[in-house]
């Protein structure tokens, strides 16, 4: 599902990672500063590698050898960022349908996603009035509704306390079961990964340390 080879020099940091995973959910695991977010950005198209090849599912998104570089907005790789990045000037409902509105009719069913993520009572509120956990649920819904080809979750629980994490994890598990698209889940928390992922890619210092399958 993910076939990623990237090389990029970012100041003193050298990202030189290569991994392949066929699992429905792939986890990127490692300490902060290991290059996890850089890999997410490279797959989303927000960071251009100096060299490499990035394929997700059936789609070749980037290949430095033949100059392939699909623009960010056409990759259909939706990202749930660590800090939610909800649009502050839009309501929760408007945030949710933003990507679907751009995608046209292709996007998901609002009622279904709202039910899946328990957002019924939040729709008319503004992002700044939401708790951290609510924000992340909206961000997940926004990504799902935008007709995703793949989903990248960049430490979606990192900014939350234990209680909030326990609040969201069940939603994530439901989502993983329902999504039927490749999911890359970034985390430095072993527990989350073991509950969600099929393949765990461990990063350290910009390099892949190991790729292991989790038996269920």
């Amino acid at each position, binding site marked *: 599902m993910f076939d990623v080879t990237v090389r990029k020099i970012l100041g003193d940091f050298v990202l030189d990672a290569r991994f392949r995973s066929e699992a429905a959910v792939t986890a990127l695991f490692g300490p902060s500063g290991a290059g996890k977010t850089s890999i997410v950005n490279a797959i989303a198209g927000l960071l251009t590698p100096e060299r490499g090849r990035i394929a997700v599912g059936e789609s070749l998104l980037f290949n430095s050898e033949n100059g392939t570089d699909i623009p960010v907005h056409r990759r259909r790789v939706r990202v749930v960022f660590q800090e939610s990045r909800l*649009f502050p000037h839009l309501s929760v409902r408007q945030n949710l349908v933003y990507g679907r509105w*751009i995608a046209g009719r292709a996007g998901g069913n609002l009622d279904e996603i709202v039910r899946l993520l328990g957002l019924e009572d939040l729709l008319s509120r503004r992002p700044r009035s939401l708790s951290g956990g609510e924000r992340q649920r909206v961000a997940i819904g926004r990504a799902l509704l935008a007709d995703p080809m793949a989903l990248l979750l960049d430490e979606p629980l990192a900014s939350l306390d234990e209680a909030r994490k326990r609040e969201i994890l069940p939603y994530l598990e439901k989502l993983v079961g329902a999504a039927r698209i490749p999911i890359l889940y970034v985390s430095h928390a072993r527990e989350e990964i073991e509950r969600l992922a099929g393949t765990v890619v461990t990063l350290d210092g910009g390099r892949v340390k190991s790729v292991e399958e989790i038996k269920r």
Partner: protein
Amino acid sequence: MDWFHFSPDEWEAIRLSLRVATVGTLASLPAGLLAAYALARWRFPGKILFDGLVHLPLVLPPVVTGYLLLILFGRRGPIGAFLDSTFGIVLSFRWTGAALAAAVMGFPLLVRAIRLSFEAADRRLEDAARTLGANGLLVFLTVTLPLALPGILAGLVLAFAKALGEFGATITFVSNIPGETRTLPTAIYTYTQVPGGDANAARLAAVAIVLSLAALVVSELLSRRIAARIGG
């Protein structure tokens, strides 16, 4: 004399001023947005020079700005002659010319305020919009522009207030014609030059103060409302 009973000439000057300032400010908004965006986000050769050019009316004697407008946009000027022969538009000694002078003089203030708000707009939100499928134009229209709205309003009001008070460039470019180019400041100036005009000058000065203050208050209220909506 009655403080609230304006003579037809006074009304004329007030109405004309509001029209000149409104048209001048709004007409310069598209160019102002473009210049502000270029200065905030783009790197291009000659950027410092461009920045200087945009700010020139702020530091140049207004009379010089008016003179340059006259040279360029006068009926025989290169741009003025072109506008006249191609579109039948004449700016010199018309209220539209006064609006152009007001727009040019207010332009640096407009661009400064909008540029700051473009610089402050969160790039990470723009990236999020791109990952959700928005192309460059959609990102600008649906994310950057709404986030910059308080700064755009502030810039518009500053430019409007500047346009209301514009004197030097206006009188140099389009003179002081009653009903056509005699705006509030030129009317006040004219009244101070004629015997018995002191009371008229004082009343119009009061109007200028009220209008400017109202503009500032309205802008402050609007940007507070927007800021409260957008949140920190």
